[in-house]
């Protein structure tokens, strides 16, 4: 018993020491602290490749830190307001922008490369939040299901789609909120009526994209709300065109992901340098292929698999108040409408 305990204790002390040794690095002469959502800086996200290339070019070390999803990043920035530990933040999207601005978290950036970014992708006139990639919310169809593809939001309410659709909760997920605002921008005041008519088609409402997309992949329902670029992954890594993004007649809501300089940072020059570099064509290619989103520089060279992305002819933009209500008020109404008659 005692011997086994000793072995156990030895192992538990050695393992973390090894883990720690693996990640202890000598401090670089110059460095930037960058906050991002956790999948950006993971091994399968664009973070590691970007940091390596930037350090090689400029000698400035990028130290990523991620408290969780994009919501947690914003919460942490608010928590540290006045005494920020981050110089640059990556990953706040157009839906989060109003809060980031009203909390006064960011200062305007100066980036030469912004000139090459189409004006309709810019998030604000002062460039407090600068776009680095974008995409469109769209329904993904599993073509193995043999379902006739719906061609519009209105089509989804037809009886043939009963129990065939997986949505996400707008209170906890950005595609969920994206879909909600999409219906608002198409139906306006009649949106609650649409949600009620849509209800028979909805198999379940998941709390995050991961569960929803996972359920669709395991065959629970053939339609799920995701991104127009989702088929790119299946094309690139599975050589499959089984999953198709549908283009709808009403147009598609756009999601633009942005980055910015954190107010209070003492490394404004280096921060601007990094942000400008991320808008270069090499960084844009890395971001687009790892994030599976569209680059904001149209001339970026992309793998052939991006041909399977759905880029809608008609793009819809969310405004801060749509039909006289904020996104949060629409969400309240959504909860009220759908929990009314369980």
């Amino acid at each position, binding site marked *: *018993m005692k011997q086994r305990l000793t072995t156990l204790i030895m192992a538990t002390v050695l393992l973390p020491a*090894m*883990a720690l040794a693996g990640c202890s690095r000598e401090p670089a002469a110059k460095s930037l602290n960058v906050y991002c959502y*956790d999948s950006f800086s993971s091994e*399968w996200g664009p973070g590691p490749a970007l940091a390596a290339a930037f350090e090689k070019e400029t000698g400035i070390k990028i130290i990523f830190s991620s408290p969780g999803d994009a*919501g947690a990043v*914003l919460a942490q920035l608010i928590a540290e307001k006045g005494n920020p530990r981050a110089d640059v933040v990556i990953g706040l999207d157009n839906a989060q922008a109003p809060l980031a601005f009203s909390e006064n978290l960011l200062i305007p950036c100066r980036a030469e490369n912004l000139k090459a970014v189409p004006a309709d992708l810019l998030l604000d006139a002062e460039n407090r939040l600068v776009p680095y990639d974008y995409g469109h919310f769209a329904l993904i169809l599993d073509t193995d299901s043999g379902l006739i593809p719906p061609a519009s939001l209105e089509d989804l309410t037809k009886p043939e789609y009963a129990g065939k659709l997986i949505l996400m909760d707008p209170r906890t997920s950005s595609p969920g909120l994206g879909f909600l605002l999409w219906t608002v921008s198409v139906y306006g005041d009649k949106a609650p009526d649409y949600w009620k008519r849509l209800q028979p088609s909805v198999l379940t409402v998941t709390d995050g994209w991961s*569960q929803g997309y996972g359920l669709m992949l*395991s065959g629970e329902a053939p339609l799920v709300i995701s991104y127009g670029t989702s088929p790119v992954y299946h094309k690139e890594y599975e050589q499959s065109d089984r999953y198709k993004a549908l283009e709808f007649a009403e147009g598609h809501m756009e999601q633009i992901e942005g980055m910015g300089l954190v107010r209070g940072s003492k490394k404004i020059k280096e921060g601007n340098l990094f942000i400008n570099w991320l808008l270069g064509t090499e960084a844009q290619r890395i971001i687009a292929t790892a994030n599976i989103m569209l680059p904001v520089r149209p001339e970026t060279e992309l793998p052939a698999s991006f041909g399977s992305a759905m880029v809608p002819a008609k793009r819809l933009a969310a405004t801060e108040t749509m039909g006289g209500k904020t996104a949060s008020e629409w969400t309240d109404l959504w*909860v009220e409408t759908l929990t009314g008659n369980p």
Partner: protein
Amino acid sequence: MIRNRGSLLPFLAPAGPLLLFVGFPLLLFFARGAGDLPGLTADPSLGRIYQFTLLQAFLSALFSVAAALPGAWFLLRWRITGRSLIRSVSTLSFLLPPILVVLGFTLVFGRAGFINRGLQGIFGLTEPPLKILYSAGGIILAHVFYNFPVALRLLTDLFGSYPENELKAARSLGASPLRAFITVLLPSLWPGILSAFVLVFLYCFLSFAVVLVLGGGPSTATLEVELYRAVRFGFDPGRAASLILLEGSVTLPVLLLFLFLDRRSHHEFSPDRHNAPLESPPPAIKVLTTVYFVLFLLFFFLPLLAIPFHSLLVRSTRGGSALFSAAHYLSLFRSAEPLRALAVTLSAAVVSSLSAVALLFPAARISALNRGVMNGRILFSLPLGVSSLAVGTGLLYLKSLFPGTGNYLLLVAAHTALAIPLTWRILEPAARSLPASVIRAGEVYAPPLIRFFRVELPLLFPALVTALAFSFALSAGEVNAALLFSGPGLPTIPVTIYHLIGAYRFGEASALGTLLILVSFGALLVLERRDGRDRKIISR
């Protein structure tokens, strides 16, 4: 009740991490929100969410305990082969990130799950016949899957001696089997039933939407979903603070009522509880037991097995058939993050579970000697009534006080703190039911180390194993604190699984989940075997 100053120390040691990682973050959290507490009564949908949260927690606790009762009786009364297998399997559902549980569950019970596809194949049906998921029944099924194991283990661990002679006496005096059950057996089961019911109720009351996916949402969302929205989407600290108070208005009275009832219901294990070797069951009972545990294994093992199955399945191109290969494993190990995550997760889980047990053991001893001590019991149980999301958000503030990106020590300390309430709920009642005379005799006759290894450790071993197993699983499956303190250089497995899924790599996520299951299952089996051997030593 506490006899001298020296005996206060054991209660202060575990209080430290609890205050730092639960109390302090909550305080920081409230400090921001307390300024503007809006009234929540004007919100009609919140009322419905509140009612639903209450109802599903109550039903889940009821069904989990009801489903575990026969199992506990079989395990306590009869000698059953595969006992350690059953106990090990039941801890695994606790260990997995919810996303994998949901996936495993739907792969078995879903519209396109094994069962439906099997039935469709046999009977030539076009529509899936089993439609239990995506209804309120689906939520309860998923919650029972999660919580039944806790119920089964608490019922068996907190059980007094099996009152064989008393039952016989009652029957020979003319009591009906039902009356004998109610008057003799039920009181022995009562502490376990109470503990299990309250724990499961609190977990389900504070549960997040992940499992509710199986209920078809959004009419099946809990208060935690509204809280998530307030802290992550709208950033409304006032509303968040109000929601925590609203949750507390249910969880605190439930906790206090439980502690009150629990204090009144304690009773001792008889010192000879291990002496009577269990008998083999008679044929009729054997059939019942087999049916029960085969259903149990189907219900628990199939969703868990679905994950390894999924990890070997390689998605085919359209029209082609499914292919099996180790491709996901190969591509997983071409990356550095998974192996590092495995090392960090296992070491953090072992260190934090051992620390939690070591910190609480002295306090549990004191509690065993002073039956009336309430202080520690209330203090250590309080975090069970608090939302982990609120604590997690408070930790954001705490973290901003520490420099650096990842911090192994903070991760382990946070997991230790999170494990304390559950460890205490398992260890304390077990210690309290030890005969004080035995402990005092040890104090008189043996030096402390010998006393510890020879008397107290063997007597408490089953409860210790349960406490270690659950706090191990709690740490290995925890996401909130892990995300905060891990940082890019120090990932844990659940964090890495989310990274993989975020990059569409569902197959590799299942492969990593499979590795976590295999390693943990191995460790649990070893622990359970030890448990069995030690019992035999004592009985000699």
